Protein backbone atom coordinates (compact mmCIF):
# COMPACT_ATOMS: atom_id res chain seq x y z
CA UNK A 1 0.00 0.00 0.00
CA UNK A 2 2.81 2.42 0.89
CA UNK A 3 4.56 2.16 -2.44
CA UNK A 4 1.30 2.34 -4.37
CA UNK A 5 0.15 5.39 -2.51
CA UNK A 6 3.49 7.13 -3.04
CA UNK A 7 3.55 6.27 -6.74
CA UNK A 8 -0.03 7.39 -7.26
CA UNK A 9 0.57 10.59 -5.30
CA UNK A 10 3.68 11.44 -7.31
CA UNK A 11 2.00 10.60 -10.61
CA UNK A 12 -0.96 12.77 -9.69
CA UNK A 13 1.31 15.69 -8.83
CA UNK A 14 3.12 15.45 -12.17
CA UNK A 15 -0.22 15.08 -13.95
CA UNK A 16 -1.36 18.33 -12.44
CA UNK A 17 1.75 20.14 -13.63
CA UNK A 18 1.43 18.73 -17.16
CA UNK A 19 -2.28 19.51 -17.33
CA UNK A 20 -1.71 23.10 -16.25
CA UNK A 21 0.92 23.45 -19.00
CA UNK A 22 -1.46 21.94 -21.57
CA UNK A 23 -4.30 24.12 -20.36
CA UNK A 24 -2.12 27.20 -20.84
CA UNK A 25 -1.19 26.20 -24.41
CA UNK A 26 -4.67 25.16 -25.45
CA UNK A 27 -6.37 27.99 -23.62
CA UNK A 28 -4.12 30.51 -25.32
CA UNK A 29 -4.79 28.85 -28.67
CA UNK A 30 -8.49 28.99 -28.02
CA UNK A 31 -8.37 32.68 -27.26
CA UNK A 32 -6.39 33.17 -30.43
CA UNK A 33 -8.16 30.85 -32.85
CA UNK A 34 -11.59 30.43 -31.24
CA UNK A 35 -11.58 26.95 -32.71
CA UNK A 36 -13.82 24.15 -31.57
CA UNK A 37 -10.79 21.94 -31.54
CA UNK A 38 -8.83 24.12 -29.12
CA UNK A 39 -11.94 24.48 -26.97
CA UNK A 40 -12.36 20.71 -26.78
CA UNK A 41 -8.72 20.25 -25.83
CA UNK A 42 -8.95 22.95 -23.16
CA UNK A 43 -12.07 21.43 -21.73
CA UNK A 44 -10.47 18.02 -21.68
CA UNK A 45 -7.45 19.38 -19.82
CA UNK A 46 -9.63 21.24 -17.35
CA UNK A 47 -11.77 18.23 -16.51
CA UNK A 48 -8.83 15.90 -16.17
CA UNK A 49 -7.18 18.51 -14.01
CA UNK A 50 -10.18 18.48 -11.70
CA UNK A 51 -9.98 14.71 -11.47
CA UNK A 52 -6.29 14.82 -10.65
CA UNK A 53 -6.74 17.59 -8.11
CA UNK A 54 -9.27 15.42 -6.31
CA UNK A 55 -6.97 12.42 -6.49
CA UNK A 56 -4.11 14.53 -5.18
CA UNK A 57 -6.24 15.54 -2.24
CA UNK A 58 -7.07 11.92 -1.44
CA UNK A 59 -3.59 10.50 -1.97
CA UNK A 60 -1.38 13.22 -0.60
CA UNK A 61 -3.22 15.82 1.43
CA UNK A 62 -5.66 13.55 3.21
CA UNK A 63 -4.54 9.92 2.73
CA UNK A 64 -7.03 8.77 5.37
CA UNK A 65 -9.74 8.45 2.76
CA UNK A 66 -7.44 6.61 0.38
CA UNK A 67 -6.39 4.21 3.10
CA UNK A 68 -9.97 3.64 4.10
CA UNK A 69 -11.07 2.93 0.54
CA UNK A 70 -8.06 0.77 -0.08
CA UNK A 71 -8.72 -1.34 3.02
CA UNK A 72 -12.33 -1.80 2.05
CA UNK A 73 -11.46 -2.96 -1.47
CA UNK A 74 -7.71 -3.48 -1.91
CA UNK A 75 -7.82 -4.57 -5.53
CA UNK A 76 -10.06 -1.72 -6.64
CA UNK A 77 -7.98 0.77 -4.66
CA UNK A 78 -4.80 -0.38 -6.30
CA UNK A 79 -6.41 -0.33 -9.72
CA UNK A 80 -7.50 3.26 -9.17
CA UNK A 81 -3.97 4.22 -8.21
CA UNK A 82 -2.63 2.46 -11.26
CA UNK A 83 -4.97 4.55 -13.41
CA UNK A 84 -3.19 7.63 -12.12
CA UNK A 85 0.11 6.22 -13.34
CA UNK A 86 -1.40 5.37 -16.73
CA UNK A 87 -2.68 8.92 -17.03
CA UNK A 88 0.83 10.14 -16.42
CA UNK A 89 2.11 8.11 -19.37
CA UNK A 90 -0.62 9.46 -21.65
CA UNK A 91 -0.10 13.04 -20.52
CA UNK A 92 3.66 12.91 -21.02
CA UNK A 93 3.16 11.95 -24.65
CA UNK A 94 0.41 14.52 -25.13
CA UNK A 95 2.52 17.30 -23.64
CA UNK A 96 5.48 16.28 -25.72
CA UNK A 97 3.41 16.60 -28.87
CA UNK A 98 1.72 19.82 -27.81
CA UNK A 99 5.07 21.51 -27.26
CA UNK A 100 6.04 20.75 -30.83
Amino acid at each position, binding site marked *: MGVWLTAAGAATAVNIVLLVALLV*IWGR*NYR*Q*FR*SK*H*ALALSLFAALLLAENALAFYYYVLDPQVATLLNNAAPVAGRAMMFVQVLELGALVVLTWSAF*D
Partner: protein
Amino acid sequence: MGTGTAAVTGLTGTASARFGDDEDGEDDTEVGATYTALAVGLLEPPEDTDGRAFDVVLAADVASLSDRFGRKSAGGMRSRSGSSRARPARVGIINTRGGTLPEGMEGVLWYVLTGTRGGANRARILQTIEARPRNANQLAEELDLDYKTVRHHLDVLTDNGVVEKSGDDYGAVYLLTDRARHHWDTVEEIIAEVD
Protein backbone atom coordinates in the same frame (compact mmCIF):
# COMPACT_ATOMS: atom_id res chain seq x y z
CA MET B 1 -18.11 14.62 -76.25
CA GLY B 2 -15.58 12.76 -78.42
CA THR B 3 -12.54 13.99 -76.56
CA GLY B 4 -14.24 13.61 -73.20
CA THR B 5 -14.88 9.96 -73.76
CA ALA B 6 -11.36 9.38 -74.96
CA ALA B 7 -9.99 11.09 -71.90
CA VAL B 8 -11.98 8.97 -69.51
CA THR B 9 -11.06 5.80 -71.30
CA GLY B 10 -7.39 6.63 -71.21
CA LEU B 11 -7.60 7.46 -67.56
CA THR B 12 -9.26 4.20 -66.72
CA GLY B 13 -6.88 2.06 -68.65
CA THR B 14 -3.69 3.42 -67.20
CA ALA B 15 -5.04 3.70 -63.71
CA SER B 16 -6.22 0.14 -63.51
CA ALA B 17 -2.82 -1.08 -64.67
CA ARG B 18 -1.14 0.86 -61.90
CA PHE B 19 -3.41 -0.23 -59.11
CA GLY B 20 -2.16 -3.77 -59.29
CA ASP B 21 1.36 -2.65 -58.41
CA ASP B 22 0.42 -0.92 -55.23
CA GLU B 23 1.24 -2.66 -51.94
CA ASP B 24 -0.01 -0.24 -49.31
CA GLY B 25 -3.59 -0.44 -48.21
CA GLU B 26 -4.67 2.90 -46.77
CA ASP B 27 -7.71 4.97 -47.55
CA ASP B 28 -9.04 2.51 -50.03
CA THR B 29 -12.72 3.30 -49.80
CA GLU B 30 -12.29 6.98 -50.50
CA VAL B 31 -10.02 6.36 -53.38
CA GLY B 32 -12.53 3.90 -54.73
CA ALA B 33 -15.24 6.51 -54.57
CA THR B 34 -13.09 9.00 -56.41
CA TYR B 35 -12.20 6.54 -59.02
CA THR B 36 -15.79 5.71 -59.73
CA ALA B 37 -16.67 9.36 -59.96
CA LEU B 38 -13.91 10.00 -62.45
CA ALA B 39 -14.47 6.98 -64.59
CA VAL B 40 -18.16 6.51 -64.26
CA GLY B 41 -19.45 3.17 -65.43
CA LEU B 42 -16.15 2.03 -66.87
CA LEU B 43 -14.50 0.22 -64.02
CA GLU B 44 -15.29 -1.21 -60.62
CA PRO B 45 -13.81 0.80 -57.75
CA PRO B 46 -10.41 -0.69 -56.91
CA GLU B 47 -10.31 -2.53 -53.60
CA ASP B 48 -6.83 -2.14 -52.26
CA THR B 49 -5.13 1.06 -53.24
CA ASP B 50 -3.73 3.83 -51.21
CA GLY B 51 -4.60 7.48 -51.61
CA ARG B 52 -1.09 8.61 -52.41
CA ALA B 53 -0.54 6.09 -55.13
CA PHE B 54 -3.81 7.09 -56.67
CA ASP B 55 -2.81 10.72 -56.77
CA VAL B 56 0.30 9.77 -58.68
CA VAL B 57 -1.64 7.63 -61.07
CA LEU B 58 -4.08 10.42 -61.62
CA ALA B 59 -1.35 12.94 -62.16
CA ALA B 60 0.55 10.76 -64.55
CA ASP B 61 -2.61 10.15 -66.51
CA VAL B 62 -3.52 13.77 -66.62
CA ALA B 63 -0.02 14.52 -67.85
CA SER B 64 -0.25 11.98 -70.62
CA LEU B 65 -3.74 13.09 -71.49
CA SER B 66 -2.73 16.69 -71.83
CA ASP B 67 0.17 15.58 -73.98
CA ARG B 68 -2.23 13.68 -76.12
CA PHE B 69 -4.54 16.62 -76.46
CA GLY B 70 -1.66 18.99 -77.06
CA ARG B 71 -2.06 21.05 -73.91
CA LYS B 72 1.07 22.68 -72.58
CA SER B 73 2.48 21.42 -69.27
CA ALA B 74 1.92 23.91 -66.52
CA GLY B 75 5.09 23.24 -64.57
CA GLY B 76 6.81 20.54 -62.57
CA MET B 77 5.13 19.99 -59.26
CA ARG B 78 6.77 17.12 -57.47
CA SER B 79 5.65 13.58 -58.01
CA ARG B 80 5.45 11.08 -55.21
CA SER B 81 6.35 8.13 -57.34
CA GLY B 82 9.77 9.52 -58.09
CA SER B 83 8.96 10.07 -61.73
CA SER B 84 9.98 13.51 -62.89
CA ARG B 85 6.94 13.90 -65.05
CA ALA B 86 5.37 17.31 -64.86
CA ARG B 87 1.90 17.42 -63.41
CA PRO B 88 -0.14 19.83 -65.42
CA ALA B 89 -3.83 20.21 -64.78
CA ARG B 90 -3.32 18.17 -61.64
CA VAL B 91 -4.81 20.79 -59.38
CA GLY B 92 -7.79 21.33 -61.60
CA ILE B 93 -8.69 17.69 -61.80
CA ILE B 94 -8.05 16.79 -58.22
CA ASN B 95 -9.90 19.79 -56.91
CA THR B 96 -13.03 18.86 -58.76
CA ARG B 97 -13.20 15.52 -57.00
CA GLY B 98 -14.39 17.13 -53.81
CA GLY B 99 -14.03 15.51 -50.41
CA THR B 100 -12.26 12.41 -51.57
CA LEU B 101 -8.80 13.00 -50.16
CA PRO B 102 -8.01 11.39 -46.80
CA GLU B 103 -10.32 12.92 -44.24
CA GLY B 104 -7.65 12.80 -41.58
CA MET B 105 -6.02 15.90 -43.01
CA GLU B 106 -8.57 18.22 -41.53
CA GLY B 107 -7.87 16.95 -38.03
CA VAL B 108 -4.14 17.23 -38.65
CA LEU B 109 -4.55 20.86 -39.63
CA TRP B 110 -6.62 21.69 -36.60
CA TYR B 111 -4.16 20.00 -34.34
CA VAL B 112 -1.00 21.35 -35.89
CA LEU B 113 -2.39 24.88 -35.93
CA THR B 114 -4.55 25.13 -32.82
CA GLY B 115 -3.50 22.20 -30.64
CA THR B 116 0.17 23.02 -30.21
CA ARG B 117 2.30 25.81 -28.85
CA GLY B 118 3.59 27.14 -32.15
CA GLY B 119 0.22 27.16 -33.89
CA ALA B 120 -0.09 30.86 -34.63
CA ASN B 121 3.32 31.09 -36.28
CA ARG B 122 2.62 27.95 -38.23
CA ALA B 123 -0.56 29.52 -39.54
CA ARG B 124 1.42 32.57 -40.67
CA ILE B 125 3.97 30.35 -42.36
CA LEU B 126 1.26 28.48 -44.25
CA GLN B 127 -0.35 31.70 -45.34
CA THR B 128 2.96 32.99 -46.66
CA ILE B 129 3.81 29.77 -48.45
CA GLU B 130 0.40 29.62 -50.03
CA ALA B 131 0.91 33.01 -51.62
CA ARG B 132 4.26 31.92 -53.04
CA PRO B 133 6.62 29.01 -52.19
CA ARG B 134 9.60 30.18 -50.15
CA ASN B 135 12.61 28.79 -48.40
CA ALA B 136 13.25 28.90 -44.68
CA ASN B 137 15.43 31.99 -44.89
CA GLN B 138 12.87 34.01 -46.80
CA LEU B 139 10.17 32.95 -44.37
CA ALA B 140 12.27 33.94 -41.36
CA GLU B 141 12.88 37.35 -42.86
CA GLU B 142 9.36 37.94 -44.03
CA LEU B 143 7.70 36.88 -40.79
CA ASP B 144 10.40 38.30 -38.55
CA LEU B 145 11.01 34.95 -36.89
CA ASP B 146 14.18 33.21 -35.87
CA TYR B 147 15.58 30.99 -38.61
CA LYS B 148 15.67 28.00 -36.28
CA THR B 149 12.06 28.56 -35.27
CA VAL B 150 11.03 28.58 -38.91
CA ARG B 151 13.03 25.42 -39.56
CA HIS B 152 11.33 23.72 -36.65
CA HIS B 153 7.85 24.72 -37.80
CA LEU B 154 8.63 23.58 -41.32
CA ASP B 155 9.81 20.23 -39.98
CA VAL B 156 6.61 19.78 -38.02
CA LEU B 157 4.49 20.79 -41.00
CA THR B 158 6.46 18.44 -43.24
CA ASP B 159 6.16 15.56 -40.80
CA ASN B 160 2.41 16.06 -40.81
CA GLY B 161 2.18 16.20 -44.57
CA VAL B 162 1.04 19.82 -44.72
CA VAL B 163 4.00 21.24 -46.61
CA GLU B 164 6.79 19.68 -48.60
CA LYS B 165 10.20 20.60 -49.84
CA SER B 166 10.75 20.97 -53.53
CA GLY B 167 14.12 19.32 -54.05
CA ASP B 168 16.78 18.33 -51.58
CA ASP B 169 19.35 21.03 -52.02
CA TYR B 170 20.09 23.73 -49.50
CA GLY B 171 17.66 26.58 -49.68
CA ALA B 172 14.94 24.50 -51.31
CA VAL B 173 11.55 26.17 -51.24
CA TYR B 174 8.59 24.75 -49.37
CA LEU B 175 5.14 24.44 -50.83
CA LEU B 176 1.76 23.17 -49.73
CA THR B 177 0.98 19.51 -50.30
CA ASP B 178 -2.03 18.51 -52.37
CA ARG B 179 -3.81 17.55 -49.21
CA ALA B 180 -3.20 20.91 -47.58
CA ARG B 181 -4.30 22.68 -50.74
CA HIS B 182 -7.39 20.55 -50.87
CA HIS B 183 -8.27 21.54 -47.33
CA TRP B 184 -7.22 25.13 -47.73
CA ASP B 185 -10.64 26.40 -46.67
CA THR B 186 -10.00 24.79 -43.29
CA VAL B 187 -6.68 26.57 -43.03
CA GLU B 188 -8.32 29.85 -43.98
CA GLU B 189 -11.00 29.31 -41.41
CA ILE B 190 -8.33 28.86 -38.75
CA ILE B 191 -6.18 31.74 -39.97
CA ALA B 192 -9.12 34.12 -40.15
CA GLU B 193 -9.29 34.08 -36.38
CA VAL B 194 -5.63 34.97 -35.89
CA ASP B 195 -5.55 38.05 -38.09
